């Protein structure tokens, strides 16, 4: 009865997405002349790149919320931790090119710091940074999740303590003493692996990497939820006691998916920061974490593809409406959320399925 990872047509769609994102977009952006209708502007590339990072978060949220039934209001923190890990590296890459021509990041100089604080030790190594990007969110999630799941904290109690964590983390990072640049965070990046960052080709490289990451995370998630592991997760969501009495230790399962989900967000954050050029504690604001859940809900929970669609839909709408209706866009966005819940209980993807099902 084992299901294939993807059906044939889904593989087809996946491949098309891969080709479009990793080959067509670069061509349209880099080689099609700017005045051609087929040209894809840098701005559009940056926008799509950013939204793909969000989509990774939404996908991660789907694993933990959609499939396991654990609503995290703390995914923004994992995202930001990944982002900060990358940001520290990017700050170090500025080298002596900062305002103060110091090896220390500028904000440290003007706050009178004389040496790098201990937690910056590994930040000059790219390899270490790549590790930190997954390990730091992973470790935070592991410790937090271990205690929470062990204490059988469930439902909204879990959601609320993740929110408390989020809020505490945000305040902590706001403090200048914490050593992450306070509320300004990190900006003005110059290089990544010694290659200038503000070039079209570097941007495209980041874009393609993000696309590849999103698509492979999608496959990984498919595989996870398609395995018995995934079914245990859904069983945990439905009847955790029964899971225990069937001989599974739910803690291990919850913890595993929780950590995986956190790490995915960390990776998303790390890809996000060089593309948008700033990371600061407002990424950890409770509202941001809630938004991730909203993308997942809009697209359709427990569908994997839904949250990705949701991330694109909501953020696309936001980007578009803040320009076309700067004073009214919140009405549209609010109406979208209400409309989706009232009329599309299974999200946008649910609607598509229904329409398809109706025809068949």
């Amino acid at each position, binding site marked *: *009865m084992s299901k294939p990872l993807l059906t044939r047509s889904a593989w087809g769609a996946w491949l098309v997405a891969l080709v479009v994102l990793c080959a067509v977009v670069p061509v349209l952006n880099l080689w099609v002349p700017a005045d051609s209708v087929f040209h894809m502007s840098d701005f559009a590339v940056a926008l799509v790149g950013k939204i793909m990072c969000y989509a990774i978060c939404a996908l991660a949220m789907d694993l933990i919320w959609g499939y396991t039934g654990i609503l995290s209001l703390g995914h923004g923190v994992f995202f930001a931790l990944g982002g900060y890990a990358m940001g520290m590296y990017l700050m170090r890459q500025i080298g002596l090119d900062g305002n103060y021509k110091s090896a220390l990041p500028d904000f440290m100089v003007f706050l009178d710091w004389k040496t790098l604080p201990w937690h910056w030790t590994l930040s000059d190594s790219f390899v270490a940074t790549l590790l930190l990007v997954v390990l730091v969110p992973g470790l935070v999630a592991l410790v937090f999740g271990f205690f929470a799941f062990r204490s059988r904290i469930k439902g909204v109690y879990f959601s609320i303590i993740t929110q408390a964590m989020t809020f505490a983390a945000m305040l902590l990072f706001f403090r200048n003493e914490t050593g992450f640049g306070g509320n300004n965070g990190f900006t003005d990046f110059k290089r990544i692996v010694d290659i200038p960052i503000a070039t079209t080709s570097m941007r495209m490289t980041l874009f393609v990497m993000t696309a590849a990451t999103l698509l492979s995370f999608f496959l990984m998630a498919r595989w996870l939820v398609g395995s018995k592991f995934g*079914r245990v997760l*859904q*069983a945990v969501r439905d*009847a955790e006691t*029964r899971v225990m*009495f069937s001989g599974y*230790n739910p803690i291990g399962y919850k913890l595993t998916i929780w950590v995986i989900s956190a790490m995915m967000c960390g990776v998303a954050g790390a890809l996000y920061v060089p593309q948008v050029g700033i990371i600061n504690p407002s990424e950890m604001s409770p509202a941001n974490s809630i938004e991730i859940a909203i993308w997942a809900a809009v697209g359709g929970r427990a569908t994997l593809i839904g949250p990705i669609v949701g991330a694109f839909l909501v953020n696309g709408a936001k980007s578009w409406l803040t320009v076309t209706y700067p004073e009214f866009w919140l009405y549209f966005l609010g109406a979208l959320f209400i409309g989706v819940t009232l009329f599309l209980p299974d999200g946008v993807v649910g609607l598509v399925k229904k329409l398809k099902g109706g025809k068949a």
Partner: protein
Amino acid sequence: MTPDLLEQGAKRVQAHVAALEARTGQTESGGRAAGFSRLATPGEVDVTHGRILYLEDVSVSFDGFKAINNLSLDIAPGELRCIIGPNGAGKTTMMDIITGKTKPNTGTVFFGSTIDLLRYKEAEIAQLGIGRKFQKPTVFEQLTVFENLELALKTNKGVKASMFFKLDSAQRDRLAEVLHTIHLAESVHRLAGNLSHGQKQWLEIGMLLMQDPKLLLLDEPVAGMTDEETERTAELFLSLKGKHSLMVVEHDMSFIRTISDIVTVLCEGSVLAQGTLDQVQADERVIEVYLGR
């Protein structure tokens, strides 16, 4: 060092080892390594004392209300034990205690003679080989019947194992067999949430069968079943008897009659009477509190 010195040393060592060996053979446990009891093999239930489940002086109270009161009870391997008793006697609570859902205030609960159940958590207890059917049927509503059974299947239940799990053909056969037993072969791809009450009861029993536990705790398994299905359940339980130990809580006396050897009557948290069904049915106190006239 000279060769003879070496030799002397070797002899000393030999003597020492021999002395040690001689001593270990004289322990109370008949020469087994540990001096106090038999070697406990993890995951193995030691039933050499003839008891698979053993409760002694267990009490539990909720906000001052004694739901279980100095309860002592034991069950032999392969036995099918029926438990009856008035509503609120503490039958479900007793199962809660055995399966780790409720921690008693006092008392001891042993699985076999070596496993102190009070030290384990629910999932561990289940893996030790105790399966349970709840009074209110609990199945995974958002999963299909097939998936419900697959999850219950006795196998390595670790995270990694689950990720890479594939049904082998023996397991597949077993699954088909159970599906047949519980009459849900036609509903195999329906969501469990959409089953009727009785169907859920069956599915839950099926999950227990898949789990293949040493001891099955069944809380009102035939509630809401037709008489005919009740009979089939009785057959099923009788066929399990011997290979498994069963503890069945029921209020359906005809069902109890079909399956029972020994019946234990629980009342106000402790054992009121015990014996064959006829014996307990004749007991005035049982008639008074439970059967009615």
